[in-house]
């Protein structure tokens, strides 16, 4: 009697590509996303491929201090007479890597903590939120400065310090999203089956945090880049004579009026990087907002 019970033929089922690829393609197809991707790509290429093409060693003395740009030294020289271009090409890698490592550490600790707090509730939740609120009350730069003053400056301390500053924000954001996801019925189904909290978090919640993560990543990374460069400007990041964009700005500032290139170029590059990351993030956020608000019916 139920002869018309639906049997959908295979060919009729619409197939779509993995969500992440589709998302990426959509983001690149917007103007903001495209410009952002190009800017970020150029700066990352400079930072990672720069050392391979640098004409001189970043620490070799090649000319008199603060010489203006010449054909041999396109960005002139710095306060010790080292080649500006070579130092610039060498100086991005640590900055980007440190910022990236700090952001990743904050996510690795913050997302599971936020997700567990959101699913579990109770003491864990209250504790996580209280910790975040206290941390958020302390100015970021002051916190990292005090931490480094206490432990001593090193690149890994900078990364840990910045991760600690980002952590409360990550916890709060991902806890809030988790609470929303946990109210959905597939989470209820999993709990009714008797799944453990860890299983609920890892199987049901975490996969749903991917999209918000992509939107949040840019903000976190930008904040980290700014903090890392501020710290190296203050002399708390890489120790001289290593080449570093932040350090280049601070060590050459007495020569600003004679040889501005050695300062302006790294400063503008950092600005371009953060600007590009923000454009890309905006494109992600807009795309995600649109897909969730797609009208039905």
């Amino acid at each position, binding site marked *: *009697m*139920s*002869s*018309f*019970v*639906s*049997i*959908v*033929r*295979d060919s*009729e*089922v*619409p*197939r*779509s590509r993995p*969500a992440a690829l589709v998302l990426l393609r959509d983001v690149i197809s917007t103007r903001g996303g495209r410009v952002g991707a190009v800017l970020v790509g150029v700066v990352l290429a400079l930072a990672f491929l720069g050392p391979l093409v640098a004409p001189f060693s970043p620490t070799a003395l090649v000319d008199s201090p603060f010489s203006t740009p010449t054909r041999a030294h396109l960005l002139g020289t710095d306060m010790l007479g080292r080649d500006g271009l070579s130092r610039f090409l060498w100086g991005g890698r640590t900055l980007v890597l440190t910022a990236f490592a700090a952001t990743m550490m904050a996510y690795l600790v913050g997302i599971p903590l936020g997700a567990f707090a959101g699913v579990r509730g109770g003491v864990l939740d209250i504790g996580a939120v209280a910790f975040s609120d206290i941390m958020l009350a302390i100015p970021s730069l002051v916190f990292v400065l005090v931490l480094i003053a206490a432990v001593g400056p090193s690149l890994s301390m900078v990364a840990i310090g910045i991760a600690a500053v980002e952590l409360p924000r990550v916890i709060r954001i991902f806890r809030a999203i988790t609470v929303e996801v946990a109210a*959905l*019925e*597939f989470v*209820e*189904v*999993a*709990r*009714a*089956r*008797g*799944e453990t909290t860890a299983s609920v978090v890892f*199987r*049901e919640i975490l*996969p*749903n945090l*991917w999209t918000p993560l992509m939107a949040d990543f840019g903000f976190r990374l930008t904040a980290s880049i700014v903090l890392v460069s501020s710290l190296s400007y203050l002399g708390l990041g890489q120790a001289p004579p290593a080449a570093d964009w932040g350090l280049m700005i601070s060590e050459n500032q007495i020569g600003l009026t004679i040889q501005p290139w050695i300062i302006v170029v790294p400063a503008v590059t950092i600005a371009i990087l953060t600007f590009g990351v923000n454009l890309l993030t905006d494109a992600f956020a807009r795309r995600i907002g649109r897909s969730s608000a797609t009208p*039905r*019916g």
Partner: protein
Amino acid sequence: MTGVVLDVRGLRVEAAGGVEIVDEVSFAVHRGEVFGLVGESGSGKTSTALALLGHARRGTRITAGTVEVDGRDVLMLPSRVLRHTRGARIAYVPQDATAGLNPRHRIGQQIEEVLGAHGKPRSAVAPLLAQVHLPNDAAFLRRYPFELSGGQQQRVAIAMALSCHPLIVVLDEPTTGLDASTQARILTLLRDLGADTGAAFVYVSHDLAVVNNLAHRVGVMYAGRLVEVGGREGVFGNPGHPYTSLLLASVPRLSEPRALTGISGAAPPPGHRPRGCAFAPRCPAAVARCAEQIPLGVTKGDQTARCWRAWEFTSSGAAARGTPRAAAASEALLTASGMSASYRQPGRRTQVLWDVSFSVGAGGCLAIVGESGSGKTTLGRCVAGLHRPDGGVLTLAGRPLAPHVTNRTSSERREIQIVFQDPDRSLNPRRPISEAIGRPLRFFEFAQDRVAERQQVLQLLERVRLPAGMLDRYPRELSGGEKQRVAIARALAARPSLLVCDEITSSLDVSIQAAIVAVLEELRRDGLALLFVTHNVALVRGIAEVVLVLERGTVREYGETATVLGRPSHPYTQQLIAAIPDLRLGAGADGAGSVRTSSTPGRS
């Protein structure tokens, strides 16, 4: 019927990139007539309704056709004239009345504003409200929209639409989201208004029974095209298009319990519609040329169907049959006695269930029916252990059952499974179908390894009539009905003895609903017991042998379905049943008072 007041010809609405949403829609509406425009979700009925006012939704454009209102094409009018035409000659009532009313303005103020915009005196407010059976005293006029019930808000929206004596009122699903009894009162009102004001109504709805009770003429839409149009008796009594016949066979009827047939597959969305007839891939009567082109129309009397095989196909599935046989009144699988439950908010406790008792036999089906707010969902959640009741005892196969899942044993948790209303919320969007169904198999150790698991997942897909190709898909790649089948398959993976179905067909189109019900019936034959929670009383008739009627948390009636629905003894049940529009012919627009309801003006 004198004179055509609305004449639509060759209407086409496109989305960006020339994707057709609506195409080749032509129909006419006569003075004082109710024209019902029916279709399932995505059929383009709302886009058509808006086009009648010369409006296209954001991202869409009207690219061809004419819409003549009283002889003038609204699509050609300059925007200033069009603005005046809207309201004065053709008015619109949206589905969601709250969306049409400004929440910060008083009711009286809002109606006056509409009148003012068309140069009408303020004194017209009172008679207008009287016309829609609303109080018109100063106190009522000073109320804000949120101080009105859903039915009252919809009446205000209708009053505003009628304020300038338009020739045509377009109503887009005006009773969807309202309770059956409220809906019945609004329908009675609309029919009276049609007779009193002489305005023509274009009534857009997915609900065939409602349209049957209201319309003089009916247009059936499928995949953006009007596939059949004609008089109500003709379209509903002797449909020409196979889609219409199958759609009618999908609607549960209170008057005659029978097997619902449903329609295989799903309607193609805009941009994926085939050349030729869009229904051909699902049509049991399709022939080769259906895939090539569609006839302009095959006419029979006042009825036109756009099908090469019009009137050649009749749905055979609608075999009459008795109420589902009562399961051998053997031992009770689940019993509930004296259940009470409430929701707690800080400083407030709202009781939703009082002293509810029932039992479900092994392999039996108990339907819990009630209007919104009756506590039926809470009752289902208590059984599933998702809501902790305040009191009462649950037993499963004779053994007492802990009130909350966390305190139940693994096998108790396994034996009672729940399926929710909205599959978009109940399936993890980031997990493939194989994982959604496979996880319970692994969790309850039914599958020892991946190979066995995959095998069993395939069997489960087969049981809910889904193709094996679904295995590696994600929920977003599936249609609503398919997702709901996956949710059922996931519940079945736990090998339950009782399935709690919480409004599982409410968000689905009727043809899909019928197919899901057919799946449930097969499962019942395999010995699965169901607790079927629904607001759809007509649907219960064909599914459950026992029914429990809830009103505001209290049991009003409990007994065999045929008895309770056939000869209801409690006034509430009588009222509930009377409010259901039926698809029976003869219960139509011309037969006065066919929506059998005690119409109490004012409060709705």
